[in-house]
């Protein structure tokens, strides 16, 4: 008395709970007989249910992996769309890159093996590295004027 009437979802939940309880407590033979009476293939049903449970457990275990996959896809798509405010001329882009390397010496190891004095860096190489630095908000710390 005084209980709030159940909505559809709550009623369904109750029915499923009751059914689960019945299945858990019912003797195995009774369940097998009931399945056979319904002309069900017990082995096939068992394989199907095991598959469903395995997939559910796997999805649950991989919640973080699935989220990371989605996060990576989102960021990759955003990065492809993103435009970075880089200097217009290739000389200025090279200048900015050299300024970043000079002012942030901790970045040097990433490049030393590529080209020790950066002479052979193509404009494309420079742009790739500048985009990465921009993505990590490193360039905002670099003092550089395009007129220099």
């Amino acid at each position, binding site marked *: 008395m005084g209980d709030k009437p159940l909505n559809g979802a709550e009623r369904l939940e109750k029915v499923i709970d009751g059914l689960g309880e019945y299945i858990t407590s019912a003797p195995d033979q009774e369940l097998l007989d009931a399945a056979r009476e319904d002309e069900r293939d017990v082995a096939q049903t068992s394989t199907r249910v095991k598959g469903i449970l395995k997939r559910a457990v*796997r999805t*649950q*275990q*991989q*919640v*973080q*992996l699935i*989220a*990371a*996959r989605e*996060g*990576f896809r989102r*960021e*990759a798509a955003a*990065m492809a769309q993103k435009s970075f405010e880089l200097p217009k001329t290739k000389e200025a882009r090279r200048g900015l890159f050299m300024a970043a390397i000079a002012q942030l010496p*901790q*970045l*040097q*190891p*990433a*490049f*030393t*093996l*590529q*080209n020790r004095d950066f002479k*052979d*860096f*193509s404009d*494309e*190489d420079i742009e*790739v590295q500048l985009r*990465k*630095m921009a*993505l*990590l*908000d*490193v360039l905002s710390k670099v003092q550089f004027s395009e007129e220099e």
Partner: protein
Amino acid sequence: MIEASATPDQILKTLGITEPSDIDIDAIAYACGAFITRETLSGCEANIIGVDDRAVITVNSRSLESRQRFSAGHELGHWMRDRGQSAFGCSDRQMHSEWTANNPETRANRFASDLLLPVSMFAPLARGKPVTTETVVTLATAFNMSRTATAMRLVEHGSFPAIIAYFESGQKNWSISKRKEVPAYLKLPEIPAPQTVTATMFEEATLSEDSDDIRADHWFTADRSEKYYIRESCFRTGPDSVVTLLWWKDEQQIIDLNEAEERRAERRSDGDWER
């Protein structure tokens, strides 16, 4: 985000990865705070720039996919193990040659190997498989991994006594043996004997891989080595670099050497007793 102190095993467990096909390096790196991009790089396989808790790893888009995966895993190793040093640039040579020294490159290689070829998944697939290039290729395909890293795993976690060695310009750069089974005194020479498959690989630059049963005394100086044969399989990793697998398909030499060593130890202890 997964903590920097996490081991490869812990990372895989956190992400619920239990099968080779689920080892998605882009997603794993993302979960660790590193974003992987693929670009044309000249002169290096990969690099990483990290600031605070975020990093961008760039791998050379011109490399094979398996190499890209290993390079990404290697850079992620720097990110997880050497954080604080905000940038690394790593060459292909480092990823092949740095396996035995105690330095950041070796640690990064080990990290990549543990992450992308986890023992829990690798060992069951390697069980009972011959230590040859064919097995390496099969397993490398299953894990989408480089042959060198896979070959090393096969030697360390396969079922049989074996040694893997990396040769550059005809000289040994490093070697690793299955420690429990191969006696420590079975050491490889710095330069392979002319009768070995390895030496032939350096003579014939067009050979991409080769194998043969080789008399053990062509590799080892241990007593009576001329009586035994070992399986030698080689594959090329560059114009002047070769990975060699030595497998005691017939383990009799190891058994005889171990017995001889036991007899010597017994004699020594008898002598000590009498003294």
